[in-house]
């Protein structure tokens, strides 16, 4: 009987466990996570902090998920060491576990900026349910908060803090919010919406120092003589792949853990998926980290199926994000804002009534897009990236506000419907 060890208990780990069980009804599956909770939805920690969802509603699977799938779940215990030749993992409590197939679904860990005052009371990160709980326990109504970082995590924290009625300022190093996901025009629309909801935004400074008094936060110095008084600081400078176990075990690690089309790492029988993995991105046509939910699930399903003995290649993924913050809906995917325009063709329908359409082409194929406002067609455009459709004959239509499925070439349109 094969034994499977999964390290990690979120989107990728759960998807993989289910896929393993489908392919191997008898094998022993063990999941280990240093978090003490059954699998929950990490993106919902913002709604949790805002008081809009309970832990119960955040759970990814029914209460009997682990026993009903014959999974032994070891929760609240860290894996401290992997020995690849012995196929053995050591846990923080000294226990050891053997595996035939191993999956690293360890996710990410918050990037900690090298900023003075990081250890003061009132400074938090915002990555796990425990982080959200800690902030919720600490926060009182009169607290003013500064969020350092204007990316997805920073804005999701800011949204929750505002919702709780706390005065909130986001400070962002770059010239705009969500600079890694969006272009200047879409960022401006998001910022306008955020300001209208009462968020303060300070650009061009990532915060120079967190100031304290008696060990507690009292402000953030911006490094140009300006200080924002506050009682709470959230460090939201993004997430790094959590690769230390893999690195110490001698696996090949770059930014993340590179995997092949079967989600297998440089060591046979050892797989990786989710935010820790570098897998094939069909928009960039390269292997890279894509820390987004759909990519974790698809990678997990592929890893699990292959661990259970199938030879299924991964359909590939790409960075695809949808967000609905401050009443503004945005979807963006792939190379939505390429660093150079060399070799790219950009089609734009400038902002109109809070709507915006932008599609990026390369060699007649869509490689990225940003949509603000009307998102119903976003998935159709995303599918064109994935299928590498030559859109030359109808490229102008892509940014039409009325673009939809009927705009696809007849052959593709009908074949897709016949296929499902």
């Amino acid at each position, binding site marked *: 009987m094969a034994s499977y060890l999964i390290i990690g208990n979120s989107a990728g780990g759960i998807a993989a466990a289910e896929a393993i069980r489908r392919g191997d009804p008898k094998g022993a599956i063990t999941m280990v996570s240093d978090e003490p909770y059954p699998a929950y939805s990490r993106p919902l920690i913002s709604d949790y902090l805002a008081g809009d969802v309970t832990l119960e509603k955040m759970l990814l699977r029914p209460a009997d998920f682990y026993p009903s799938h014959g999974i032994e779940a070891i929760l609240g215990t860290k894996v401290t060491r992997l020995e690849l030749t012995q196929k053995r993992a050591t846990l923080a409590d000294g226990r050891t576990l053997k595996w035939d197939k191993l999956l690293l679904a360890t996710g990410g860990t918050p990037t900690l900026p090298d900023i003075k005052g990081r250890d003061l009371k009132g400074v938090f990160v915002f990555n796990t349910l425990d982080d959200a709980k800690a902030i919720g326990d600490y926060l009182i109504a009169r607290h003013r908060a500064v969020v350092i970082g204007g990316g997805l995590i920073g804005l999701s924290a800011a949204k929750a803090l505002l919702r709780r009625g706390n005065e909130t300022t986001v400070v962002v190093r770059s010239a705009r919010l969500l600079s890694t996901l969006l272009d200047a025009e879409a960022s401006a629309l998001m910022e306008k919406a955020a300001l209208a909801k009462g968020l303060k935004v300070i650009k061009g400074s990532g915060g120079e120092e967190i100031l304290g008094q008696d060990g507690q936060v009292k402000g953030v110095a911006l490094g140009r003589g300006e200080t924002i008084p506050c009682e709470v600081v959230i460090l939201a400078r993004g997430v790094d792949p959590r690769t230390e176990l893999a690195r110490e075990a001698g696996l090949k690690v770059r930014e993340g853990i590179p995997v092949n089309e079967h989600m297998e790492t440089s060591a046979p029988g050892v797989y990786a998926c989710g935010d820790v993995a570098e897998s094939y991105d069909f928009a960039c046509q390269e292997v890279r980290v894509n820390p987004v939910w759909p990519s974790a699930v698809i990678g997990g399903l592929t890893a699990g199926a292959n661990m259970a003995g199938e030879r299924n290649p991964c359909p590939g993924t790409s960075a*695809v994000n949808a967000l609905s913050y401050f009443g503004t809906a945005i979807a963006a995917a792939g190379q939505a804002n390429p660093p150079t325009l060399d070799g790219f063709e950009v089609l734009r329908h400038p902002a109109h009534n809070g709507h915006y359409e932008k599609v990026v082409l390369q060699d007649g194929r869509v490689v990225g897009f940003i949509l603000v406002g009307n*998102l119903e067609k976003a998935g*159709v455009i995303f599918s064109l990236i994935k299928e590498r459709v030559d859109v030359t004959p109808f490229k102008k239509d892509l940014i039409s506000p009325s673009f939809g499925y009927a705009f696809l070439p007849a052959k593709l349109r009908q074949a897709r*419907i016949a296929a499902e």
Partner: protein
Amino acid sequence: MKKVYPKEEVCMACRLCEVHCLAAHSLSQDLIRAYKLESPRPRALVQVTEKGPVSLALPCRHCREPMCVYGCFAGALTRDEATGVVSLDPDKCVGCWTCLAVCPYGAIYRDPARGVAAKCDLCAGRPQPACVANCPNEALIFAESARG
């Protein structure tokens, strides 16, 4: 499984499918009341997509590899392995719109009044989905495959 297939060659974009879908998913089951009196107003779970002479009503395909389910971090979208039906639980949906960003058919919509996603539920409980039953041109069929 049986689902709703469009026959684009006979669709006239009259949008009666949308009208009857909305009524079928209203509290009153009455079109005028649903539009004028119900709050929040129900939303049609099918939408006609058209370009020039081409039009078709394209409700959820209930995909075997459902990208929307894979993308849903709220656990609101699920696929029943036994029936093949992809369902949306509006109580779990948080309106993040990831499903819209990954559905290759553009068959998931926003319900602005409720702030959640909306998609075809095959009119569970009816002998035939309302859009199919009321399409004057038989441009929608309820069948096992596109050929009927």
